[in-house]
């Protein structure tokens, strides 16, 4: 559909919105009620955020909005205006910025949560892990050495719904989160 930035329609005005996605200013034109999920994937080609249920019941679509995990499937793009949006694609840059890494130091380097997920071979099919890694990143930024209970609590009760994994890779997720904490603390490669 051709979108005229000045046009209006009954479903919501098409407006120009500026977002900061994974560190870059991005300008998009969309109706203000469009969920962030569709804007990221279809307008901005940011694919490290997945469609799961569209109902905020599973967590596959999670992104960080100013460091807080939100479900992009129900978050209108208007709610993200002027805020920092981080998807899994942007986790390495987020880490590099937090640690003050030079471009050379950051090259080919994943975020510790991603590194831990690789090292522990966490995923089965992997579709839920985009949201799992976002949630665990949010947790570790606030609580650098969480207990099993803290990790379970974050992934079960801290958002609109538990983060669900149908493959039930939960044991691996728990091990992955602990390893990520160790990597972030410089205790593990």
């Amino acid at each position, binding site marked *: *559909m051709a*979108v005229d930035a000045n046009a209006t*329609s*009954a*479903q919501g005005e098409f407006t120009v919105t500026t977002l900061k996605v994974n560190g870059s200013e991005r300008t998009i034109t*969309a*109706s203000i009620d*469009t*969920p962030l999920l*569709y804007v990221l*994937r*279809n307008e901005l080609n940011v*694919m*490290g955020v*997945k*469609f*799961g*249920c*569209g*109902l905020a*019941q*599973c967590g*596959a679509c999670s992104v960080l909005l100013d460091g807080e995990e939100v479900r992009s499937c129900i978050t209108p793009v208007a709610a993200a205006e002027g805020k920092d949006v981080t*998807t*899994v*694609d942007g986790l*390495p840059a987020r880490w590099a910025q937090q640690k003050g890494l030079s471009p050379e130091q950051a090259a080919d380097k*994943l975020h510790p949560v*991603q590194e831990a*997920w*690789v090292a522990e*071979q966490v*995923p*089965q*099919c*992997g*579709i*839920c*892990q985009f949201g799992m*890694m976002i949630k665990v990143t949010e947790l570790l930024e606030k609580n650098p050495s969480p207990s099993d209970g803290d*990790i*379970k*609590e974050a*992934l*079960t*009760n801290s958002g609109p*719904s*538990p*983060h*669900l*994994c*149908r*493959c*039930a*890779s*939960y*044991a*691996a*997720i*728990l091990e992955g989160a602990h390893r990520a904490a160790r990597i972030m603390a410089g205790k593990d490669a």
Partner: protein
Amino acid sequence: MPRTRETATAIQATDIHGAAFSRRGFLVTGGALIVALSVKPGSAMADTANTIDPAQPASWIEIHADNTVLIRTGKCDFGQSSIYTAYRQIVAEELDMPMSAMTTVISGDTDRTPDGGGTFGLLRQASGNMRKAAAYTREAALALAAQKFGVPRAALSIRDGVISGGGKSTTYGELVAGQDFRLTIPTEGDLNSPFGLRVSGNPPLKPVADYRIVGQPVTNPSLRPKLAGETVWVGDVKLPGMVHARTIHPATLGSTLVSAGKVDAAQFPGARVVTIANLVAVVSENEWEALQAAQQVAADTKWTAWAGLPGHDKLFDHLRKAVDWTAYPVRKGRANKGDVAAAGSGKVLQASYSLPYHKHAPIGPMVSLADVKPDGSVTLHTLSQNAQHLRRMIAKMLGSSEAQVVVRTYPGPGHFGRSNGGSAGSEDEAVLLSRELGKPVRVQWMRADDMQWSSQSPAAISDIRITLDGQGRIAAYQADHRGPPMQDDRLVGALLAGLPVIDAPSAETTYGFQSGVMNVADAWVYGTIGNVAEQGHGTPQIGQKESPLAVGLRDHSMRTPVQFQQNFPREVAISEAAALAGADPLQFRLDHVDSPRFKAILNRLRDEASWVTRPSPAPGAKSRGSKVVKGQGVSIMLRDNGYWACAAHIAVTPATGEVKVERLTIVADPGVVVNPLQLRRQIQAGSLMGVSQALHEEVSFDKGAITSTDWASYPILTIGEMPEVKVVIAGDSTDGVYGQGSESANALASPAIAAAFFDATGKPARSIPLRPDHVKRMLAG
């Protein structure tokens, strides 16, 4: 592509263990690295037909002059990792090349993989293709080296890709560089059938005792790009000029279209409705508009009423009283023996067990993209466990030929067998809409579509009678298993559109997996019991014949099809029989199995699980009150040469009906362990999915429609409910047979948990899920 120059001096065809081997010529290459043991078909990448020649080992395994290896398989990855780990290990092992040389895996695309068939039994059956193709290739290379060195084959050895003998050495790459060899290997089967092709013949396989790569904890190379966000998942595919579609499925599983709603053009100027018989969809270039407009149109679309289902609360009454179980032939168990009626003089356990329908419930609903060109050629982008058979079904639906259809597969949400016959949903709808619109179409099912319009793992009921002898041993075991068919691979979009599909499940059909006859599939394990009578009774799918759409509750295999439905009642009944005999349920199993491998893993389980040897129920068992009671339970399974045992430790609060699984311990002897790291992850996850089924899962439906539509109405296990999981891998490789992975672990959890419930409360749990409402009913009984 390298060009070939036929030479007059082409060597005579040599027989390599039944494969014909010849040199066709020398390659005049422009520096290309793709020089294989056989010539690679020139149009392998063409879009319109599969020109992969399965008789050519290079179609399976391509060895390049730089000593790198490419592997092709029609199977896909659904999280098992096997095609990226086990398959590479198996090929590297047979070729005796280093793992690092196995650089590329091409999977699941109909135009560039050789074998077809379903993605299941990856290590059981399918790995045999890779293993044999690699063995033929290795033998051909050795024949070449023998000729080159002037020594007999027996004087040669291979290590890390270096072939040595007679004081000389070479590499695979050196042998094939600049050459055009053709090795034609024997295959059998039908590429596009649900079963695919098999490499036949008997090339010499490397002895298991010599394995150095199989058995190593190789990591999965597909994970890093996935986790970095670099992998293109099926939902990420974008086709130029495509439109987004949302399907508006009928109001019930038997409703036909009265009138399709109209798009409010003022609200949704870019959206339009497409109707093909009972298939209704809304499309737009903008996904959000398509989604919203579909909701608006759905509210305005009228369907006929239909009430051909019993409703989930009447399901088991229906199966017991309304179904004619004599309509389908009865199947007898292979282990049947003796005379169950005459055997035994001791106590008798007679009990009925039931399992509800389960959903595969992938985390992401199905999504497919199709591009149907004016010339009728179809390219379908999807996630399928059986792309070649999907291709056949799409061609059948369109009334065209398989050569017109290409299916490309991508990673996507795991769905545990739902597409092992080709289709999981949305593929056919994308094709039909693209044909109608003349442009590429992306169909994204929403959560409710995926819950209501996909197939499900069928419900089942079992009547079991166990007769003890005077010493408290089992004298006779009798089981009658009843249930709807296990598999319906028909394309549901084609059914809605009124277009041709494969045969519906029935007693008569022999096509694919569509037989409705129920086999006795749970491998018999209690070999010391003298009298056994197991029977399977089938029936048509619930509601299918009554549905004007011929839909109803479509069934489909999930993880351990049929076996799950028969192992649960058997194992729960064996634990109850142990109680009747006053015996410890683990020791009772030890006393009745005959396989030393079962004895080994049961003894190991007793130690690893800190099992307390005593009869059930537990001394403190209670079925009332708000005090938490605890119990232990055990289950075993034999599947695909893998021996499995599981112990569950649970806590029950009788007053609230709350069941908490505290510990799971699994001991697995899958024979040859190809990859202990990946196997451990599969067992952990598979068993936890089993806990989910035991505690939560039951498909609800009313008289017309499935009412489990989302994660609120079909809850699954959360990480907060996760028990401690202990996995012990104790593979006995003596027989040299590869066992299987996580699906056995998946089936073990439910009967062990149900047995632990009996141990904790003294009341048998003869059905799942152990949800508070069901539990309170069980405890009141």
